[in-house]
């Protein structure tokens, strides 16, 4: 052989996976690893008893649990059979989240905040989770679950002041925008080091089990950060100690510009990874409010009853950029968000409510208007506490506080050095 390039066919080649659609492509999801959505197959997956042996969830981990059909009906054993008021509240919470996102994105574009992250298209994953859990169950968000906070009634003004890093910010400008924290709302401090919160959730759940409470913890990561060791630590520890935790993987297809296949490799689904650790595992339609609600309720029941953790992959789509700092048209087909075969979570729940005669276009439009006004009013109030570009109003002394419980002498000296 004259060259290292062999003529053999069975030689290994470095494989770098590429997404289905890049800029300029016409979006085509026909090769997406997903069951046939038109047939009823995804609606006939069984809903086993929550205390089922973990390995019996295999078809749920490789399939796709759904409740809402694409034409707005409910179908199959996973239907949580929520009453119309609960579904309308879910719709409202998702629309509120969307409205807040729209406002804060604009605020960032106006230069009044350094950063923001929208959750457009993924609202159901957070909102339905919050509604299916108890308000005291600690959630460990990544950074796109503002819907959890908003569903639990966190004051809009407080959320916005955090994004603006102003004198109304309860965190005194210590954390970057969107890294909210609220023990009161059982919403764990967001750190933004990806994946690190997963083992905290397991530790928290171990605490619940140790103390014999009926609490569960509920963690979120994007599919990209499942590649972090922390994800595997969380799965391993929750399996070993049978921790009452819910481990959510929000597979929104994109980790900034890297498509999900970069983290997935040759794996069948992200949910499937849970099975390797002996954990119950589900892949669900993340744009289906009712499926998310049903799956979280199932996992919470399992956890509370001592059945241990569940891994839930929410199959969804990130309709906007990762954050205000990237332009998705540079790495994916522009039309991809609208071509996503599982639709939009707000539209789908809305259509269902209309179909069953519990909602209509007029009420929807009125609610949208009402929420936008409500959000704008809260924003005006928040802005009165300052913005990043005006005066934050944060006392520089606070910089040295809360590093430790009590300030050590070297920090006191450094504070003096700053002249305060």
């Amino acid at each position: 052989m004259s060259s290292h390039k062999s003529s053999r066919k069975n030689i290994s080649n470095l494989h770098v996976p590429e997404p289905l659609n890049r800029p300029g492509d016409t979006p085509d999801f026909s090769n997406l690893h997903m069951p046939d959505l038109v047939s009823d197959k995804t609606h006939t997956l069984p809903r086993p008893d929550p205390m089922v042996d973990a390995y019996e969830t295999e078809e749920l981990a490789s399939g796709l649990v759904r409740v809402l059909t694409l034409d707005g009906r409910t179908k199959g054993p996973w239907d949580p059979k929520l009453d119309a008021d609960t579904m309308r509240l879910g719709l409202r919470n998702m629309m509120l989240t969307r409205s807040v996102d729209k406002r804060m994105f604009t605020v960032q574009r106006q230069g009044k905040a350094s950063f923001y992250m929208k959750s457009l298209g993924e609202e159901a994953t957070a909102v339905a989770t919050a509604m299916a859990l108890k308000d005291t169950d600690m959630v460990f968000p990544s950074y796109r679950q503002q819907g959890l906070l908003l569903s639990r009634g966190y004051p809009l003004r407080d959320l916005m002041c955090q994004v603006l890093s102003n004198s109304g910010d309860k965190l005194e400008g210590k954390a970057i925008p969107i890294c909210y924290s609220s023990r009161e709302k059982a919403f764990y401090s967001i750190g933004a080091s990806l994946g690190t919160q997963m083992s905290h959730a397991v530790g928290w759940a171990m605490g619940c089990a140790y103390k014999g409470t009926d609490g569960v913890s509920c963690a979120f990561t994007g599919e990209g950060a499942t590649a972090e060791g922390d994800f595997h630590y969380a799965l391993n520890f929750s399996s070993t100690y049978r921790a009452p935790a819910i481990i959510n993987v929000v597979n929104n297809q994109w980790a900034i510009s890297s498509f999900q296949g970069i983290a997935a490799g040759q794996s069948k689904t992200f949910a499937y990874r849970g099975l390797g650790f002996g954990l119950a595992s589900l892949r669900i339609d993340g744009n289906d409010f009712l499926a998310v609600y049903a799956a979280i309720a199932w996992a919470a029941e399992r956890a509370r009853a001592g059945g241990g953790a569940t891994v839930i992959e929410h199959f969804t789509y990130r309709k906007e950029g990762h954050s205000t700092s990237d332009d998705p048209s540079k790495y994916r087909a522009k039309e991809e968000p609208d071509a996503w075969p599982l639709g939009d979570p707000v539209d789908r729940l809305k259509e269902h409510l209309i179909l069953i005669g519990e909602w209509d276009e007029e009420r929807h439009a009125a609610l949208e208007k009402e929420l936008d006004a409500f959000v704008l009013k809260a924003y005006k109030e928040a802005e009165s506490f300052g913005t990043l570009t005006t005066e934050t109003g944060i006392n520089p002394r606070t910089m040295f506080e809360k590093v430790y419980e009590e300030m050590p002498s070297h920090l006191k000296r450094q504070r003096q050095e700053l002249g305060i």
Partner: protein
Amino acid sequence: MPKNNNAKQMNMIQAINSALDIKMSQDPDVLVFGEDVGYFGGVFRCTAGLQEKHGLHRCFDAPISEGGIVGTAVGMGAFGLRPVVEIQFADYIYPAFDQICSEAARLRYRSNGDFTAPITIRSPMGGGIHGGTSHSQSPEALFTHIAGIKTIIPSNPYDAKGLLLKAIEDNDPVVFFEPKRLYNGPFDGDLNKPVDSWANHELGQVPEGHYTIDFEKARMHKEGSELTILCYGTMVWVAEAAVRETGVSADIVDLRSLMPLDLETIVASVKKTGHCMILHEATRTSGFGAELSALVQEHCFYHLEKPIVRVTGWDTPYPHALEWEYFPGLERVSKSIIQMMEG
């Protein structure tokens, strides 16, 4: 050291075990976990008997996953427990580094006090046991560089117990390094002498009950007038032997608590003696000695009669066969003292 009639002879392992036992008895929120710490009682035996006495769910084995051990401890701490975890060797703490630096250290700050991580991370450190590159390291400077964590290194059984009890009760994350060469006795770096035992030493007399030692408070190990030696852990005993051998009159300051640091004691001593030597087993460049040297220069410049001298491990990995050429032992420290005081 306060007189205590209930003192009992203990080595450092027993003193650490006693601290854990007392805290677990007092506070049901204290849990101990780590690799091999449960039934077996730890590779250095520090947790021996704790599982049997306090139950399987209070002292248990963890998967070989340092990041997972610290990560779950942070979550437990936030929940309201007080986990004490063991990282089997300081050399293996790096997989947990992100959890310590990005999470445990920052949780209080970024949440503005909403969540905290009152956890203690125990880990045997240092050389002298033929551990080579992977069982001998002294990574303390990596942790003193991180705002939000405390770094403690005891040099004897009495301090180990009092400082560990303090660490567990502290509401901040504490990295607690245990110089493993000191577990069974003070070690002065002279290999030719028979192994000393804590039984022969007053710092091996440890009260059986509860007591704490404050952080940010150095211990004056020996007092003198001509030289200040700043040290901690194993090097305290090397310093003592070198002072004895050279006959120099020296303050030996056992820092004990690197972060927070007792600057007051350091400055008072150097102003008194006008000479400052810094010892540590860790590699020199960017070691904790660099920080100490800078602080002494900033605060004592006009009192210094000679340049500050550092005697440390070399800037190499900890070698196996050449362990004693790496270790800043009695010979090197004595030689440096003589050079400094006569030069």
